[in-house]
């Protein structure tokens, strides 16, 4: 990405490269705001969207989630160990509660 800087410092690998320039962060924020607007439009047009409504909304949510995680929280540029720490919790939570909801027949309703 052209907006990636080379802001190196001497504090170790964990925050050696802080990723984007300020302009890059502003572009990401605008992108996130646009996705939020699209999500709201989705919620008002669910009848027209039909079966595409729910998957579309979930995909937009996931895009926003990972954009913040990877760029604003610097996971894309940081050590993989930080990613591992977070993803262990995330995968555990998603797996655990998916089983919980499935046990209570949530997905059948």
């Amino acid at each position: 990405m052209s907006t990636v800087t080379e802001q190196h410092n001497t504090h170790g690998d964990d925050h050696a490269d802080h990723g984007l320039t300020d302009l890059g962060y502003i572009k990401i924020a605008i992108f996130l705001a646009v996705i939020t607007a699209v999500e709201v439009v989705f919620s008002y047009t669910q009848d027209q969207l039909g079966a595409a409504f729910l998957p579309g909304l979930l995909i937009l949510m996931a895009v926003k989630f990972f954009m913040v995680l990877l760029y604003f929280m610097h996971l894309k540029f940081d050590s993989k160990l930080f990613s591992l720490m977070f993803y262990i919790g995330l995968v555990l939570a998603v797996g655990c509660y998916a089983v919980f909801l499935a046990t209570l027949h949530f997905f059948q309703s």
Partner: protein
Amino acid sequence: MADTAVHADEHVDHGGHYSSTGLSNNKLAMWMFLGSECLLFGGLISTYMLYRGRHSENLGPDQVWDIPFTSASSFVLLMSSLTMVLAVSSAVRDDDRNTKVWLSVTALLGALFVAGQVYEFTTFYREGLGFTTSLFSSSFYTLTGFHGVHVSVGIIMLMSLVGMISKNKVVGDKKETVELFGLYWHFVDVVWILIFTLVYLIPA
């Protein structure tokens, strides 16, 4: 082994604590904490999803939600993530003045979000949706209330950090401290991204 010792010594001057991998222990601990927070909010979101249909006929999600208002609140919180990342960026450049400005703006946007949540809760309560009205209302207030408390704690932390930077009382690596506060704030935003879609936009 000797390399490890040398590598660790390199970081002593910055006031932070670094592991043998060269990674900050504080940052590693923060990511572990955020990972554990996924389990907390996962439980609250799952409980809400399970109970969102358990309400009386006229006081369900589709009757009480004000999507335009909540969308505006979501936008405010999203923009607070931008100001937070600009604060971190300023801290990396050793620009204390802009770091304090962006941290203060972040806290202000966070306060605006919490004010919106208080207004929303008050409106719902006046419409008859109390905490114990139904399983739906209990799970909704618990989920969004927990999130609101996280935002409120974040605001207190941000304002404390602004005060500490002003008085030059930040212990250790200032850049890393701002970054750690930023990680917490962004996580709060990330959780709201999930809540906004799963709770507000997907009909019950």
